[in-house]
């Protein structure tokens, strides 16, 4: 057998294994990495839960650079994976193109809207979830100053910030909210050292409850808050366990549910617009044994009250992304 034949044989084997993987779902994690203890990890947990319950398997890739976005999408689509879930707003422009080229493949994008017939766009009303943890922060704060640390400075993170400020101000109109963004590049999702430094700066200015919506950077925020003996609020995944007695609560964004549902629906999933909020359990706050001691009944009552009013529509939380501005500072 000549060398060429060997190569052809190998290629043929590869092709067979590729078709064998047909209709296996796939997930693409964003630059924060699937172990960011936050957004991507929630997505990974959803996928894992599906795999455990159904015994199925899925393909995954963790992006290392911006340039890989479209490449990874095309690779999965060409290999016949269906549906393909991507965790992160930043996939929008890449998906817009790839979705056109693979009309028979179903795509699910989380945190962004892509208007294509074969795409399901899952968006969360983060402003609602941030509002209720804002209520908790204002209730728990003794100094009347609370902090917010965002990851990359993008409208989505400002949406978190804006909802949080509204919740704080509604509970304590005199409260001050100090806001910081870690950076303007994707590296801002993964700079725990800077997150810790920003936290120390906010604590120095009097903040005693700090809400981190910053992916991997948030781990540094929670650490610095625990070191200084002040409260912090986690995001996306339940982060209460990281520093019991210091993490006041976590704003749960059920990315895992979004991924799980997408995998469960399989190739026939319904496309279109999918909004997850407080009302349908897509968002919530975390209460478990790690924060039971500090999350007092008083705080809980106020948070539950705000939650009920948002669900009933009595409280309308302003969405930053609707007009790119926030009514309160």
């Amino acid at each position, binding site marked *: 057998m000549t060398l060429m034949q060997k190569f052809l044989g190998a290629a043929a084997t590869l092709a067979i294994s590729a078709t064998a993987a047909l209709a296996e779902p796939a997930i693409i994690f964003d630059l924060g*990495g699937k*172990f960011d203890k936050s957004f991507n990890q929630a997505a990974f947990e959803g996928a894992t839960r599906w795999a455990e319950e159904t015994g199925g398997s899925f393909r995954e890739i963790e992006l290392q650079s911006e340039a890989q976005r479209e490449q990874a999408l095309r690779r999965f689509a060409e290999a016949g994976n269906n549906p393909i879930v991507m965790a992160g707003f930043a996939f929008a422009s890449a998906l817009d193109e790839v979705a056109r080229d693979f009309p028979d493949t179903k795509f699910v994008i989380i945190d962004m809207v892509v208007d294509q017939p074969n795409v399901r766009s899952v968006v969360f009303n983060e402003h609602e979830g941030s509002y209720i943890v804002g209520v908790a922060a204002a209730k728990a704060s003794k100094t009347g100053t609370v902090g917010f640390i965002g990851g990359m400075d993008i409208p989505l993170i400002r949406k978190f910030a804006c909802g949080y400020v509204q919740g704080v101000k509604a509970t304590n109109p005199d409260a001050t909210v100090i806001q910081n*963004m870690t950076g303007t590049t994707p590296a801002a999702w*993964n*700079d725990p050292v800077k997150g810790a*430094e920003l936290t120390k700066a906010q604590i*120095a200015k009097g903040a005693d409850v700090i809400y981190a919506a910053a992916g991997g950077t948030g*781990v540094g925020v929670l*650490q610095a808050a625990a070191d200084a003996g002040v409260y912090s609020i986690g995001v996306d995944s339940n982060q209460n366990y990281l520093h019991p007695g210091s993490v006041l609560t976590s704003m749960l964004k059920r990315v895992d549910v979004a991924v799980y549902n997408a995998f469960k629906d399989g190739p026939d999933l319904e496309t279109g617009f999918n909004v997850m909020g407080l009302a349908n359990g897509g968002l919530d706050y975390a209460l478990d044994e790690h924060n039971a001691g500090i999350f007092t009944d008083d705080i809980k009552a106020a948070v539950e009250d705000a939650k009920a009013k948002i669900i009933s529509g009595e409280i309308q939380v302003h969405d930053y992304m609707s007009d790119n501005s926030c009514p309160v500072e």
Partner: protein
Amino acid sequence: MDFLQFLLTLDSTIRLSVVLLLACLAGLFSERAGVVDIGLEGKMLISAFVAAAVAYESGSAWLGVLAGSAASVVFAMIHGVASIIYRGDQIISGVALNFLASGLTVVIGHAIYKKGGQTPTLTGDARFTEVKLPFADAVADVPVIGPIYSELISGHTPLVYVAFAIVPLVWWVLYRTRFGLRLRAVGENPASVDTAGVSVVAMRFRALIITGILCGMAGAYLSTAQSAFFGKEMTAGRGYIALAALIFANWRPVQAMGATLLFGLLEAISNLYPNIDVFGLFSIPVQFTQALPYILTVVILAGFIGRAVPPRSVGVPYVKER
């Protein structure tokens, strides 16, 4: 801004400068000896990882620093073998080390701890805690001097004091010892050092060992003092900023301290006061403050203000004439 706020800004400046200072001094040794070191970032990263892992396993932060420095020295030696002995391109070798560190840390970290490259959180003696200098509480109420002593000077991690103590030491070694004279000569005119009967290769290797140790301390500071775990890519470009500071400081140790403190101050200001309002006329956006270190370096390099004069033989492998 009141006095206390001012002190807090300076306090934050010191914390932020230390990594840059150590890395900058590390770069100073290697570049003064004629070896360009763009691999500061990679050496810091591998050291940050090894320091966190060893500190976690042994429960001692100091052991972590030692192990981190050792790992960083190993990287420096790889750089040395490639660029001094085999006369490879020093930039390429440095960049290769950066990539190697970025990949190795995550792969090994994930293999051991299964947390995607993160190490577990360090607690107790496994991390550096803040040292309270004697009488810090007693003098805190004395006006002006009290807060300066108790807020600004006291209450940092041990590595901070070590870093600032190293600056005069580096100056002394570089300008007042025979070793320092030869080191500088190797970077300026290696042929003359060779004529004097001193081995250029050995001098450059010695310089790289010091570079490795200092870089190792910088990395260990990141993972065991400034935060309490290793996370992938946690150096976040600080090695490159240190390199910029080195150019800004004209490859001199005391100026290096000045440059890194200035860069630290700019970062502290951008953290504490994101948007600075100038007399209500206009506001300086945070991005400008963050970019200022790079802008200043480019201005210096372009020769508008002052002039950056690198060691003459930097980046040139030494070939002995036969």
